[in-house]
C-alpha cells in the first residue's frame, strides 16, 4: 500500500494522443552506418569526462558478510581495506540473526569510496537455524525496496541517492575440510538470485594444501549439484577475460585475514605468527587473499555494481510490480499502461474503502440507536421509580397528616376535659369552702 501511494502519481500511455502528430516526421532510412572521421574531433575525451564526473561524485560500494560468529569476517574486512573498522566481538548468544551495517568513507589517491560493510550477527549460533537466512533476505530486499521507492517518486534525485543495495556478498565457509553445511546451502540458495555471492573459505590456514584442493572441488560440485548460482567473474571484456577465467577456477578463495604485522626478512608484512611458522596474508602461496582483493576490488568492483543494478534489482523490481498486479500487456497481449492497471486497482481500492466506510457508519448508527434505546429504558425506569417514591412519600405524608389530626383532636378533647375537670375542681373547692364556712358557724 505504501508503494501504491507512491504510484499514486504514475503516467499514462494513452495520454500520448495529446501530442497530435501534425509534424511530418521524416526518418531518413539510413539506419546507423559507420562514418570515418577526417581528423581529430576530440570526443575521445568522453571517458575522461565521465571518469572526472564520477570522481567528483564519489563511489559507493556495499559488501555483505555472512558467516558464523568468530569466523573472521571483521578481520578480513579490516585486512582487505587496510583499516581498522572498530568492530567488537559479538556474543554467541543472540536469539536471532541480526544484521549490522556500518558505513565508512575511504579515500585512495583521488578516489573517494563510501563503503558499507554489513555483518551478520549471531549467524549459526541458534539451536534452530531454520529461519537464519530470513533476516538476510529481508535486509537485501529492504535496500531494493527503498531504491525502487526513490525511482518511482515524482520528484526524485537518483544521482544523489546513497545506493545501499548490496553489491557483493562474501559467504564465509567454515574450514571443516569436508563439505558445505546444510545451513550454507540453504542460505546461498535463497540468496543467489538476489545478490552476487562470492564464497570464501575462512581461516584457511587450518587446512593443508592437499586438503584444500579437495575441499574446493567438493564445495564447487555441491554448489553446482544444488543449483546455487554464485557470481562468475565476467568474461566479456578481453582485457580482463583471461585473468577472470583463471580466477573463476580458484573459487572459492581460501583466505586468511590479519591486521597484525610480522617481520619477514627485512619487510613488515601482514601475517599470523604461529610457533611452527608465519602465515603471510599477501603471499599467494599461503592463501588466496590477494586473489580476492584483486577480483573484488581491483578488477570487478564496477561489474559487481552493474550486475546488482541490471540483474538483481531489475528482477526484484519486476517481481514486486507484478506482485502488485501490474503488467505490461493484458490477456489479449495489448499493451496495458501502468496507469490503467493502477487506476483499476485504485478504483477497486477506493470502492473497498467506501464499502468499509459505509459498513462502519452503519455499525456506528446502529450502536447509537442501541445505546439510545438503552438510555431510554433506563430513563423510563428511573421515572417509574421516581413516581413510586413520590407516591410513597405522598402516602406517608397523608398518614402523618392523619396522625397529626388525630393527635390534634386528642389534644383538644384532652384540653376540653382538662378544662372541664378544672372547672369541676374549682366548683367543688368553692362548694367545699362554703360547706366548711357553714360548719364553722
Amino acid at each position: 500500500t505504501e508503494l501504491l501511494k507512491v504510484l499514486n502519481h504514475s503516467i499514462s500511455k494513452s495520454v500520448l494522443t495529446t501530442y497530435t502528430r501534425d509534424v511530418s516526421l521524416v526518418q531518413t532510412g539510413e539506419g546507423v552506418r559507420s562514418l570515418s572521421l577526417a581528423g581529430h574531433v576530440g570526443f575521445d575525451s568522453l571517458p575522461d569526462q565521465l571518469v572526472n564526473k564520477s570522481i567528483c561524485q564519489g563511489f559507493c560500494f556495499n559488501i555483505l558478510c555472512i558467516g558464523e560468529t568468530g569466523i573472521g569476517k571483521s578481520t578480513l574486512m579490516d585486512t582487505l581495506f587496510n583499516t581498522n573498522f572498530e568492530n567488537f566481538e559479538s556474543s554467541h548468544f543472540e536469539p536471532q540473526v541480526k544484521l549490522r551495517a556500518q558505513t565508512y568513507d575511504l579515500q585512495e589517491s583521488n578516489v573517494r569510496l563510501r563503503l558499507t560493510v554489513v555483518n551478520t550477527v549471531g549467524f549459526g549460533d541458534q539451536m534452530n537455524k531454520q529461519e537464519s537466512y530470513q533476516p538476510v533476505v529481508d535486509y537485501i530486499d529492504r535496500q531494493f525496496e527503498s531504491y525502487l521507492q526513490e525511482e518511482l517518486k515524482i520528484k526524485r534525485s537518483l544521482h544523489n541517492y546513497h545506493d545501499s543495495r548490496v553489491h557483493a556478498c562474501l559467504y564465509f565457509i567454515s574450514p571443516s575440510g569436508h563439505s558445505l553445511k546444510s545451513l550454507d546451502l540453504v542460505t546461498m540458495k535463497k540468496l543467489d538470485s538476489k545478490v552476487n555471492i562470492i564464497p570464501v573459505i575462512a581461516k584457511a590456514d587450518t587446512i593443508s594444501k592437499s586438503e584444500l584442493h579437495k575441499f574446493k572441488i567438493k564445495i564447487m560440485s555441491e554448489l553446482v549439484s544444488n543449483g546455487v548460482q554464485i557470481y562468475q567473474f565476467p568474461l566479456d571484456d578481453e582485457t580482463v577475460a583471461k585473468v577472470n577465467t583463471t580466477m573463476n577456477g580458484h573459487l572459492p578463495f581460501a583466505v586468511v585475514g590479519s591486521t597484525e604485522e610480522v617481520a619477514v626478512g627485512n619487510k613488515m608484512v601482514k601475517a599470523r605468527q604461529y610457533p611452527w611458522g608465519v602465515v603471510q596474508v599477501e603471499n599467494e602461496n599461503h592463501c588466496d587473499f590477494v586473489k580476492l582483493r584483486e577480483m573484488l576490488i581491483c578488477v570487478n568492483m564496477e561489474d559487481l555494481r552493474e550486475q546488482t543494478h541490471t540483474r538483481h534489482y531489475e528482477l526484484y523490481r519486476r517481481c514486486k510490480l507484478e506482485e502488485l498486479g501490474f503488467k505490461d500487456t493484458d490477456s489479449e497481449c495489448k499493451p496495458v499502461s501502468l496507469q490503467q492497471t493502477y487506476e483499476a486497482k485504485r478504483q477497486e481500492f477506493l470502492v473497498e474503502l467506501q464499502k468499509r466506510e459505509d459498513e462502519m457508519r452503519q455499525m456506528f448508527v446502529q450502536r447509537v440507536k442501541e445505546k439510545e434505546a438503552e438510555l431510554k429504558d433506563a430513563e423510563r425506569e428511573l421515572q417509574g421509580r421516581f413516581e413510586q417514591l413520590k407516591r410513597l412519600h405522598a402516602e406517608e405524608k397523608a398518614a402523618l397528616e392523619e396522625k397529626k389530626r388525630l393527635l390534634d383532636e386528642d389534644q383538644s378533647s384532652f384540653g376540653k376535659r382538662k378544662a372541664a375537670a378544672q372547672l369541676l375542681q374549682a366548683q367543688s373547692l368553692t362548694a367545699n369552702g362554703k360547706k366548711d364556712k357553714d360548719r364553722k358557724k
Partner: protein
Amino acid sequence: MSEATKPQPQAKGEKTPISDTSYVGIDAILEQMRRKAMKQGFEFNVMVVGQSGLGKSTLMNTLFKSKVSRKSVQPNVEERIPKTVEIKSVSHDVEEKGVRMKLTVIDTPGFGDQINNENCWQPIMKFINDQYETYLQEEININRKKRIPDTRVHCCIYFIPPTGHCLRPLDVEFMRHLSKVVNIVPVIAKADTLTLEERDSFKKTIREELRANGIDVYPQKEFDEDAEDRMINDKIREMIPFAVVGSDQEYQVNGKRILGRKTKWGTIEVENIAHCEFAYLRDLLIRTHMQNIKDITCSIHYETYRVRRLNESNILFTSNPPDHPAPATPQPNGVAAHRSSVE
C-alpha cells in the same frame, strides 16, 4: 564513519624494517569505469535549428569532420522548402581512439522559412518531448531493457543570422520556449560577414536580450555545481554566442592544410581562434562539456518533463483528491457527543 588514508611508509632513522605501502586498489575502479564506458560506447544527439542557408549542415560536418549531414538530398538542386517544419534525424557510428559513439544529428528544415512563422517552434518542441516520452515509457515498463536507448535531444544548436543588430522575434520566441526543455547553444552563423567590433557588439546585444527575456542558455547558471565549475562556466558565458564559420574544404595555408573558406580577400581559417570561434564551440560541445550536457539533459530536463507528466496525468485521471481521508472510528463512549454529528 572513520576517515582512512593510505598509511605513510615509516621513514625512521633506526633500522626498523620498512612496511610496504599497503595498497588496497580502490582507485582501480576508475580504470574499470573507463573500460566499461569504452565497451558500451556513447550516444550523443544534437539538433540544429535555424533558417535554411545559415550553414547548419556545413557546421555539423566541420564539427565532426565527416559528412554527418547531407546538405541536399536531391543533388539536382530542386531547393524544396518544406511546407511545415520537418524533423530529420540521421545517426552515425563514429569511432576515435577506441571510443565509439553513436552520433545523431537532427535537422529541422523548414524552420523560419515560411511567410508565417508563428508557432514554428512547436513541432520541434513536440519532437523533443516525444523523445522524453519514449524514454519515460521504456523506463516505467515492468520488463525493461538493460540499457534504455537514449534518443533524447542533448543539445540544440540555434543559428542566429549575422544581422549585426539584435535578436529577431522568431529567435526570442524559439529560445524562450525551448530553453526550458533542452540545452540551447546559440551560435552566430556565417560570422565571416562581421568585423570583430561588429561581432563583439552584436554578441553583447544578444547577451543582454537573452537576459532581458529570461532565457537561460547552456551553460545555465543555476546548474553550476561548485565554485570551480562556476569559474569555468562564467568564462564561457562571457563568450556566448559563439561566432562560427563552417567549412569542409581544406586549403593550403602556411604550408599546412587547414579547413577554411577561401575568398578573394583572404582565407578564413575555421580553427583559428583569431578568425572565428569555432574552436571554442568544438571544445565546449565535444572536448570538455559533452558529458555535462548529457547529464543536464538526463537529470534535469528529463526529470522536469517526468514530474510534469506524472502530475498532469494524475489530475487528468483522478477526480477525487489523491489523499482519501480515512473514516473516523466511532467510539462507543463518546456516543452522546457524536449523536448530533451523525445526521
